[in-house]
């Protein structure tokens, strides 16, 4: 303490400094008294683990790193002198640091401070440190309680928003349930409608089939009468008739025979379309063997054979026999002029797990553009061959009824391969 300087007590200013509201004014007045630019007090509370901060003093210090090093020097040595960036990072100002026993540091910026006020300020410095630390403590607590309040507030808000979204979710679920119920009802009524339509359609189909059945049935009677009488006429009185009349009779007989076949085929098509088809394992070997022997009976010289072993399939013995009979008969019928028909029946497993039964011939073949149509009803490719145009339609219908597929591969002038695919049979 310098006794020569006018002794002005700085106590009121220190008091004022302790009051955060009047602190800025006190700093200004004290700096004036000290004849320095300004001063900063750094407080560090190690107990609370709070880093150094200039409580109540300029919050942002230019060139933070340099200040930090300066403060460390002060704490290490008690006092330190140097230059610090102030009031901005491009200007340096002379600085003096004084550390207190509680790691607080007073940094005076500017030229040599007036010794007497500095000595007084340093006397009050420990007390000031306690006050500032307390202030810092309170600030922290306030901050903490603010944080807690904020947290509580946020928690409440969160809870409220959770509640809100829960209610929204409930509303959503309820809406969805309503929608689901609506969809279910629609589905049910749709199913009902589909069922109704299906039933109506099935009935219509059944009626059509009944119709075609009874029409063909009733048609057969007069046709057979025409056939019968024409035969009788030719047989009993043929000799008495002129050749032209016999020729006409022949035409009547042929036409009525065709008509009879046609009605018979429509009948069997209708029969296949009707009723349940019980699917069972069919021994294809036996079935084809029977079909082949029927066709070669009486020493007929036909080159038709199976390629053993024929694999068992799932089907209906009667439907399958009729289908294969139609395919084999076609294969024989549609042979090339001058080339005896050669027919082979074989079977193989397909990748799909089903069995393909193939009927191969060396006949006239079917042009590509007609291959799609041959399975259609009344579709005939040649005029000169006997046929009703129903044989392959019967095959397709029968195979459909057995849950299988039909198809063909053919090269005109070389031959055809008609195939039927059915599920493989049990052993």
């Amino acid at each position, binding site marked *: 303490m310098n006794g020569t300087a006018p002794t002005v007590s700085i106590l009121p200013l220190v008091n004022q400094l302790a009051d955060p509201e009047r602190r800025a004014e006190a700093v200004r007045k004290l700096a004036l008294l000290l004849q320095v630019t300004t001063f900063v007090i750094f407080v560090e509370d190690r107990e609370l683990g709070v880093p150094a901060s200039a409580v109540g003093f300029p919050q942002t210090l230019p060139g933070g790193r340099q200040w930090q090093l300066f403060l460390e020097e002060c704490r290490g040595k008690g006092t330190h002198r140097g230059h610090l960036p102030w009031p901005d990072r491009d200007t340096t100002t002379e600085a003096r640091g004084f550390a207190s026993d509680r790691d607080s540091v007073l940094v005076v910026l500017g030229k040599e401070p007036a010794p007497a006020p500095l000595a007084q300020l340093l006397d009050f410095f420990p007390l000031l440190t306690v006050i500032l630390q307390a202030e810092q403590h309170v600030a922290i607590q306030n901050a903490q309680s603010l944080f807690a309040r904020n947290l509580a507030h946020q928690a409440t808000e969160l809870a409220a928003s959770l509640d809100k979204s829960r209610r929204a979710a409930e509303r959503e679920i309820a809406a969805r349930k309503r929608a689901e119920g609506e969809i279910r009802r629609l589905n049910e009524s749709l199913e009902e409608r589909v069922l109704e339509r299906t039933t109506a359609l099935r009935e219509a189909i059944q009626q059509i089939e009944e119709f075609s059945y009874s029409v063909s*049935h009733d048609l057969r*009677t007069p046709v057979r009468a025409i056939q019968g009488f024409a*035969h009788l006429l030719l047989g009993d009185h043929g000799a008495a008739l002129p050749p032209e009349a016999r020729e006409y009779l022949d035409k009547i007989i042929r036409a009525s025979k065709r008509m009879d076949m046609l009605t018979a085929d429509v009948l069997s098509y209708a029969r296949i379309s009707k009723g349940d088809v019980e699917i069972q394992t069919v021994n294809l070997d036996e079935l084809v063997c029977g079909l082949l022997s029927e066709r070669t009976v009486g020493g007929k010289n036909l080159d038709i054979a199976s390629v053993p072993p024929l694999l068992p399939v799932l089907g209906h013995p009667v439907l399958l026999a009729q289908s294969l009979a139609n395919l084999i008969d076609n294969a024989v019928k549609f042979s090339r002029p001058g080339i005896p028909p050669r027919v082979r029946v074989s079977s193989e497993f397909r990748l799909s797990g089903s069995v393909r039964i193939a009927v191969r011939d060396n006949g006239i073949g079917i042009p590509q553009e007609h291959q799609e149509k041959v399975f259609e009803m009344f579709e005939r490719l040649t005029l000169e061959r006997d046929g009703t145009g129903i044989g392959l339609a019967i095959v397709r219908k029968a195979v459909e009824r057995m849950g299988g597929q039909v198809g063909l591969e053919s090269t005109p002038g070389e031959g055809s391969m008609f195939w039927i695919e059915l599920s493989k049979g049990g052993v």
Partner: protein
Amino acid sequence: MIGEEKTILIVEDEENDVFFMRRAMKVAGFRNPLQVVFDGQEALDYLTGVGEYANRERYPMPCLIFLDLKLPRKNGLDVLAVIREDARLRALLVVMFTSSAEPRDVKKAYALGVRSYIVKPSLPESYAETLRELKYYWFELNLSPFHTEASEPFQ
């Protein structure tokens, strides 16, 4: 031939078919008297002796009946059903003679006790052939009630 004096009843509504049948039976060598009725009801009247059919001198009980399936008034299956229910008629030999090869019809006919089911042939030659076979079976191979003197099952 034993039984050739016995009457055969034909139930057939189609005149042409009756014609073919008569002719075929002649060709096949049947000598039995033939009676023809044109519908199912008339067939039942004949068999149960209703009205003029009560005269058994004129309308004897048949030893064999050829029954068509599709008939006016009562069809063949109806006739079979009545015959089956009637103890006096049950022993009658009924052969279905029809153009229907429907599995459904075949099944029903057998369920109603038909003795045989023949599909009408389409040509006169086959008609004769079929009836020749029938004659051989029913009158020569098969032993029927009318083969024995003691049997007069239809009285």
